[in-house]
């Protein structure tokens, strides 16, 4: 059973998806459903003995192409809608042990091509207003399958955080005539203390307003709205900076750092979003090597984040983590 329920107090949709309770939970490596189907082995999600990159519809989707009618009738105050959309899983590689940091820059370039293709294809569907590409990495994030993979939710609405960003960008443009994130980027480059790494096309920073200690945002220098606007050289530089950021994360404490990666692109609802600015956000839950930050009373109940650290100090730590500026990666 899945449906959308409207929260009139927060003015946002909640997705109920009760069938997801049954999803596979941390199976042993030999029974990973995201590995290729080995000869003589059990059939996995991928009916091939090897693959480069694969995407498929999630077996336990929160949003469905043909969703059932809501279980509870719309009462006026309590609005419901079928949970129509598409949920995909993107398998980064056939290598069960790899992480994003282990993939070569060339492979990451290919992965970005796949993300771009999914953004275009899913975004062209008439019931899809927003294509959200993300990755949950690590069991502390709630990952239920360890094989390196990300997810894509093709939403029938623009999700609230993105809508809030769209509103702020439009408002800033109205007041200043500038793109908000172009101005943020200029401020970060001018200040310099929160820079993590950069190349000709992208800049990675712990933003001034970071909510998580090691939060990193990757911003394109050029004002682009989505992956669709990337040139081939821009895509290569995105692959390079992604590899640099996740490798720094893994070298920070000497273990593969869990994180949420969230890709924020313009909606695909046919509206004008030219004041928006594509970017990628990383939220690692660690606040130190062996301490996690939890979304507790203030964050969950009041919606106000408390960051126990200074963005300037955390950016310096990340700058020092290998690969440092000038060090080659591939």
């Amino acid at each position, binding site marked *: 059973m899945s449906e959308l329920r409207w929260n009139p107090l927060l003015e946002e949709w909640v997705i109920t998806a009760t069938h997801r309770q049954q999803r596979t939970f941390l199976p*042993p490596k030999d029974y990973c459903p995201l590995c290729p189907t080995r000869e003589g082995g*059990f*059939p996995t999600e991928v*009916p091939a003995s090897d693959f*480069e990159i*694969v*995407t498929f519809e999630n077996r336990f989707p929160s949003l469905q192409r043909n969703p059932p009618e809501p279980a509870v009738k719309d009462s006026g105050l309590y609005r419901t809608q079928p949970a129509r959309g598409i949920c995909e899983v993107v398998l980064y590689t056939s290598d069960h042990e790899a992480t994003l940091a282990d993939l070569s820059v060339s492979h990451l370039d*290919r992965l970005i091509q796949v993300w771009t293709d999914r953004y275009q294809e899913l975004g062209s569907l008439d019931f899809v207003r927003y294509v959200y590409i993300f990755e949950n990495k690590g069991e502390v994030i709630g990952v239920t399958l360890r094989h390196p993979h990300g997810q894509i939710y093709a939403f029938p609405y623009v999700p609230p955080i993105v809508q809030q960003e769209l509103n702020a960008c439009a408002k800033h443009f109205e007041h200043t005539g500038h793109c908000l994130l172009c101005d943020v980027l200029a401020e970060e480059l001018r200040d310099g203390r929160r820079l993590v790494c950069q190349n000709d096309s992208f800049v990675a920073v712990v933003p001034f307003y970071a909510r998580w200690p090691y939060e990193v945002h990757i911003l394109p220098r050029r004002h682009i709205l989505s992956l669709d606007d990337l040139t081939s050289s821009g895509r290569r530089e995105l692959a390079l900076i992604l590899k640099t950021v996740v490798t720094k994360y893994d070298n920070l404490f000497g273990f593969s750092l869990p994180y949420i990666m969230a890709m924020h692109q313009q909606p695909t609802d046919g509206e004008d979003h030219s004041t928006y600015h594509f970017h990628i956000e990383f939220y690692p839950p660690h606040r130190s090597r062996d301490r996690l930050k939890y979304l507790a009373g203030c964050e969950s109940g009041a919606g106000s984040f408390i960051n126990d650290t200074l963005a300037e100090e955390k950016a310096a730590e990340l700058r020092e983590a290998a690969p440092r500026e000038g060090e080659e990666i591939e």
Partner: protein
Amino acid sequence: MEKRRIIKEDGRYLIFYSFSPQPGQEPAEKRPNTRNLTREEKPLDREGRQCPN
């Protein structure tokens, strides 16, 4: 970039993306293992549930 879309038994699609064949090998997606296990044969996860597929 090449895309090959297949429809699984339960109606879900799956897309293979391939970029260049490995030297001396056919692209992996051309060698599908079509053997299907019966429900009873399928392995269990740590909580005793059957793995997907």
